[in-house]
C-alpha cells in the first residue's frame, strides 16, 4: 500500500510518500491512520487530530470508514486551499 502525505502532513511525518504493509486487521482509513501513528513520533504528531485530515483512495475522495486494501494509493492531507 502506498501512502502519500501533503502539506503539513508531509512536513510533520517527514515524508511525502511511503510504501507500507499494514497487518490484515487494518481494514479502513481510521484503522490505517491509527496504525500509521505507530511509525514514529512525527507520524503520531501529524495524525493526532483525525478531524483535520482528509483522505483520498486511488485519487478519489474517501471517508474515515472507507475500506483500504493492499495495492491502494492512500493520500492524507488537510482541507484543500486552491484557487
Amino acid at each position: 500500500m502506498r501512502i502519500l502525505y501533503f502539506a503539513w502532513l508531509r512536513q510533520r511525518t517527514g515524508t511525502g510518500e511511503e510504501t507500507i504493509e499494514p497487518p490484515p486487521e487494518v481494514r479502513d482509513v481510521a484503522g490505517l491512520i491509527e496504525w500509521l501513528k505507530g511509525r514514529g513520533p512525527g507520524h503520531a504528531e501529524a495524525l493526532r487530530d483525525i478531524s483535520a485530515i482528509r483522505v483520498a483512495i486511488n485519487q478519489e475522495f474517501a471517508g474515515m470508514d472507507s475500506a483500504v486494501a493492499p495495492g491502494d494509493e492512500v493520500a492524507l492531507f488537510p482541507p484543500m486551499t486552491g484557487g
Partner: protein
Amino acid sequence: MAVRVQREDFDVGAALAELTDGRRDIGGVASFVGLVRDVSGDAQVRSMTLEHYPGMTESMLARIEAEAKARWPLDGTLIIHRYGRLEPGERIVLVATASAHRRHALEACEFLIDWLKTKAPFWKLEDTGDGERWVAAKASDDDAAARWQAGASDDRAAE
C-alpha cells in the same frame, strides 16, 4: 474543454482567445483570475507556495469542468492552475467559460471557481516573514461550494 496544471504563468488574453477563435456562435465569455495578495489576515505575505497532488489534480479539475458542462449549455471551458512558489501580484488560477448566452457563462464561471476551491487538491503555504504557515480552509469557501450542491442553476435562489 481544457485543464492545465503548470508552474509557469499564463497569458490571459491568449487563453481566453482559445475559447472563441474561429467561432461565430459564442455570445459571451466569462472569466475569473485569482492572484496572490500581499496580505493574509493581519500578516504580510512575502510569497506563497502551492503544493498539489499530481494526477488527482488534473482528474478533479476535469471532473469539475464536466460537471459545469452538464449543468449549463457551454461551448467551451478552460481551467489553468499554477503550482510552486508565487509572489504577491502573481496569477494563480484562471477559470473561463464560453456560452451562447451570458447568464450561462457567468453562472458556470462562478461555479468553477467555487468548486475548485474546495474540490481540487491544492494547498497553500504562506511565507509571512514571521515564518511559514499553511493557509487554513475557509468556512466561506465551503458555503460558496455548498450553494451549488443541489444541482440546477436555478437553485441559486436558495443562496
